[in-house]
């Protein structure tokens, strides 16, 4: 992959992660806070079109693994911003998912 494609793939994932954290924040309230959910959807929309463009140029099985960075990023974000607690086994599991994903994308 080219450096630009790599950068775009990483950037798109950042949009996805922040969008997910906003979504969870929004639906976590009762009643649901529509504005926060809408903010999450806006970020996810940016991710979506970046993603479509990347799909046009690269094999799906090579691109999709970039999403594997997300579990760790979401885990960290949820820990620090949403104060979610995950047991050690969960951290190990999510670490394995990311390692697996980097193996998949390195080929």
């Amino acid at each position, binding site marked *: 992959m080219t450096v630009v494609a790599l950068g775009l793939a990483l950037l798109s994932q950042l949009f996805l992660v922040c969008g997910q954290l906003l979504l969870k924040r929004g639906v976590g309230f009762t009643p649901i806070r529509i504005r926060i959910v809408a903010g999450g959807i806006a970020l996810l929309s940016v991710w979506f079109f970046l993603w479509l463009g990347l799909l046009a140029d690269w094999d799906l099985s090579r691109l999709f693994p970039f999403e594997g960075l997300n*579990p760790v990023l979401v885990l960290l974000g949820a820990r620090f911003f949403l104060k979610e607690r995950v047991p050690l086994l969960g951290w190990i599991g999510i670490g394995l998912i990311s390692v697996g994903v980097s193996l998949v994308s390195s080929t």
Partner: protein
Amino acid sequence: MKRWFFNPYVQLGFDAVLVTTAELLLKKGALGGFKLPKNIAWMGVGALASGWTWIGILAYLLSFACWLYVLRHIPVSIAFGLINIAQVLVPLGAWMFLGERIFPMRWVGIASVLIGTVLVARTIMKREVA
């Protein structure tokens, strides 16, 4: 509607299948869409010219409804860990339906993702028992 249908973990399963279907359809659409000049191709809107892309978007919208339901009931770090089963389903689907190759190293990666997903699932089972 049956009660199992509203179980957030069942919805998470629906979500995984829908996301996988959507990804494969989007790739099909991106391949068959309108080819933009190279310098603006990254915007990807050329894919909207393909019908597959729109079915893919529909599958994404459905998966999104499932996902909001899941998020309301499960911590996002756990839910996001589990939805990564799609990391396994997508390459397998690309292999079966789009003819993309999976090299040995990728199989190792897929196995690692699977083990990780099982570990995350176990933390939930412990929580439910406790």
